[in-house]
């Protein structure tokens, strides 16, 4: 009986985690792939994997970081396997369409600039500036050194600045 109750408890934990974290995962996924629907798909796949490994994840120091890593790995894996080449592997996006609202146009250009970055740099930017992760946390999640995070972040920001200057946008 205790086993059953334990399993039910774990299931409840997973549901709570999924409901609470799906939005945040979707934000990361969207900025990594640039496609709203694909981001939805990535989140679902990530949560399916998380469900499968939940007994291990729930015991991790940071289940959040663990699941975010699954998400980043999923994006990496899809890019590497060239699955859905048009929307994921090459991360091509529609040219930014001028909008009556300057703000929307500016955001489009930022997104386009972001999607021009190599995946590792893009992931670094998203984790550091969207998720507010420290260099150490980002390094652990991406499986690299803090020095690499620092250099990747610096390169990314330099590229973004150049791109946005060329397109007359600012961040």
């Amino acid at each position, binding site marked *: 009986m205790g086993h059953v109750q334990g399993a039910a408890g774990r*299931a409840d934990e*997973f*549901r709570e985690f*999924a*409901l609470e974290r*799906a*939005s945040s995962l*979707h*934000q*990361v996924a*969207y*900025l990594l792939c640039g496609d709203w629907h694909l*981001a*939805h798909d990535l*989140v*679902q796949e990530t*949560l*399916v*994997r*998380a*469900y*499968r*490994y939940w007994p*291990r*994840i729930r*015991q*991790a*120091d940071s289940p959040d970081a*663990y*699941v975010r*890593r*699954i998400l980043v*790995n999923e994006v*990496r*894996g899809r890019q*590497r*396997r*060239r*699955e859905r080449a048009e929307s994921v592997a090459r991360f091509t996006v529609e040219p930014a369409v001028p909008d009556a609202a300057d703000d929307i146009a*500016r*955001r489009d250009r*930022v*997104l386009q600039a*972001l999607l021009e970055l190599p995946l590792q740099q893009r992931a670094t*930017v*998203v984790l550091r*500036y*969207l998720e*507010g992760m420290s260099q150490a946390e980002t390094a*652990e999640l991406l*499986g*690299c050194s803090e020095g690499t995070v620092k250099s990747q972040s610096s390169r990314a*920001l*330099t590229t*973004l*600045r150049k791109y946005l200057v060329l397109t007359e946008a*600012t*961040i």
Partner: protein
Amino acid sequence: MTSPEETALADTLRDLAGSPPFAIDAADVAAIERRGRRRWQRALALRGLAGVAVIALATAGAVGAVAAHGRTGTGGAGTPGTTRMAGYVRQQIETAPSPANSLLEVRQTDSGAADPSGVDTIWTDPATGNIMLLDGSGQAKLAYWQHDYYKNKVLNEDGTQVNYGPRTWWTDDVLVGGPVKGPVPSGPAETGYFTPAEVKAYLARPGWKITGYPTVDGHSTVEISFSKDGLTDDIWADARTYEVVRTLRKFPRLGTITQNYYWVPRSAAMTTLVNHPKVPAGFKEVPADLRRSGDLRHRVRHRRLDLGR
């Protein structure tokens, strides 16, 4: 870029990612759980029998001990007899001969849809954990090698697949799950069978019963079974040497997987064959076909079942 610019970037990213807002509901989570359960069951169907083998070997040892004392009972774990059995098994495992001079050869059939092509032959080098699978013949022949390793505490599966029909090959290196907690395990990343410590952990679980003493492949064996929720494991182990002879896993909907076990001498040729992928001359490298590479990857996985769950 100055700090105010970084702050502005963070604000812009939040605007970009948060509009329109995204959320899932309980029905979405239920669908995710269903997908997760299906995938988990499918993986179990293809992964676990090699691990079950060692438990069988261990339990068979216990059976031998029980028989030597003139008992023929079928007591499950949790009874006084079982406590004694587990202790004996632990001792047998710790004194069991090392497979260092052998390779494990498994011939596997799957009645389910996962492997409709017939018999797979899967070799595992216990020294390296490397695995090679051969499936089919002629135009349908496939060869697959897998090397598991840890990088930055994350388990990676490095696979090489040769497709004899289209004369193509590919490599496919995938990350499996997230980082392990604590130090990375020493030795092969995935050995394909239980370690003694893992077996000890499983021995504490109830549910296994002795169901017969048949002769299998010329071996006098003891048959033990585990059954729960429509899932049945049968294991036949040599009653004298405790080596596993055959395992069978029956799923309520996914069919039956049978594995026959053979420990073969470690020759130089076999060691090279298992540990070094070989692509025939003239074959063309192509991007990995995810579905097909995933299928073989599942077939060779010898990860352990969560027995007695």
